[in-house]
């Protein structure tokens, strides 16, 4: 199994840390991972993206241009990454702020209204975990048990009380994903 994922949105949405939780969860499942961020000036407020590769075997190139999954959280990223999804792949996006919705018919398309989910959980900071939950519903590449372990590795001990909140957001995101296009 090899899953090549791009996660893209605004700086501050938790794009990089979502990728980190996913990557750490995969390590807990004894998989190989690479996590490659865009680390330019965009880190200071513009667009941010990270490509995460999960694999059962050693990963050669950490640089890929076509993805099995694109997780898209703003319009700029939609314009840039919709075309990079492999035929038969998955595009998961948050519709808030999207003015041009994805048009491709050869890929699976799903929506998650993660702002709503985060609000229902009661903390806007877990926005990214709601998105992660939605992704894992459609592609359960790592078990929820390992996601919990990965989460514990990513959250510093002094914030351990936030683990359950993040877990709740993952579960709610899991239940709130909407399939728009099946192939």
């Amino acid at each position, binding site marked *: 199994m090899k899953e090549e994922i791009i996660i893209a949105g605004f700086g501050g949405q938790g794009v990089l840390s979502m990728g980190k939780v996913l990557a750490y969860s995969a390590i807990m499942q004894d998989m190989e*991972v*690479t996590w490659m961020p865009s*680390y330019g000036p965009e880190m200071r407020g513009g667009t941010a993206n990270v490509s995460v590769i999960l694999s059962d075997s050693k990963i050669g*190139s950490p640089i890929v241009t076509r993805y099995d999954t694109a997780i898209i959280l703003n319009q700029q990223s939609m314009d840039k990454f919709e075309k990079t999804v492999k035929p038969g792949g998955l595009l998961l996006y948050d519709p808030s702020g999207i003015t041009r919705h994805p048009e491709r018919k050869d890929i699976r398309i799903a929506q998650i209204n993660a702002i709503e989910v985060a609000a229902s959980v009661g903390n806007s900071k877990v926005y990214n975990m709601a998105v992660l939950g939605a992704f894992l519903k459609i592609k359960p590449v790592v078990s929820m048990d390992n996601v919990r372990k990965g989460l514990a590795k990513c959250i510093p001990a002094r914030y351990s009380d936030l683990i359950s909140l993040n877990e709740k957001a993952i579960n709610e995101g899991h239940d709130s994903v909407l399939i728009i296009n099946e192939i």
Partner: protein
Amino acid sequence: MAEKILMKGNEAIAISAIRNGVDGYFGYPITPQSEVMETLMKEKPWETTGMVVLQAESETSSINMIYGGASCGKKVMTSSSSPGVSLMCEGISYMAGAELPCVVVDVMRGGPGLGTIQPSQSDYDMIVKGGGHGDFHNIVIAPASAQDMYDFVDWGFELAFRYRNPVVILSDGIIGQMMEKVELHPAKPRRTAEEILEAAPWAVTGKPAGRPRNIITSLSLDSDIQEVFNQKLARKYAEIEAREVKYTEHLTDDAEYLFVAFGCSSRICEAAVDELRQSGIKAGLLRPVTLYPYPFGRIGELAGQVKSIMSIELNLGQMVTDVRLAAGGKCPVGFYGRQGGNIFTPEEIVEAFRKFNNLK
């Protein structure tokens, strides 16, 4: 089972320094390697192993602090990125001239000048062919993963002390910024004063009665003495070239076409090789792990076996000169590269390969 941690290559350098008994780190922040010092400051090793971590006022200052630490037989290191390493070159040359061990990490970015902060391999010539003025070599090792970043710190110090020579870990923005799984080996304590005397009997640690003074200097005003010293260095380099060459190969046994690439480029190239194999073309890859000493011998052997060689680099073509030298005219040698912080994809490499070899 050893603990497996998800970390950036830069973080791996820092964690490895602490766990491998490094005595001191002196540096100055610059993207894309600032996480090295950030991690050290966060980990506060001065409270655990006693390792010193200091942000100097400039790169020139950091390299000279290392000169001082190394003179005392300590395991000391610094890290920077291309423009900062330029500033360090004078100090590196002085350390080569004074035969001082140290580890310098260069996480390369696009240049020349301040250039970009994105990944590049544009310091190959500067570090492998020079790294300062005068007649000397740095030992240069090129990591291709976060695990390599972790492992090469210890290996670097081993080489640095074995040969009393600066070692440069020549990395890049991809390897520095990318997170991967890193397996931590059992930690080693810092050397005790007695162990330093044993590992570095040349060090200035206070002169006991009964032995002559140890003098650390790169200055000699007598040409005859300097020449004898230069020839001593030559013997040392010959030994390094005979004993320390390291490379890895991917599908070279039956290869009809060869790629040569180091660092992050070797990873991307490996994917290109696999893609070509799927379409029935017998491609293979040699990754030099040591850039000095360089695997001239093995590339020369393979040049007699394959139809062509391509050097794949994130620069305008620097290592390709060494590949040509190694091939010795036995087969055509080509080059493909991207510059300025842009990165090639495996597909791009395959396309360049087909063009160079006139294959459809």
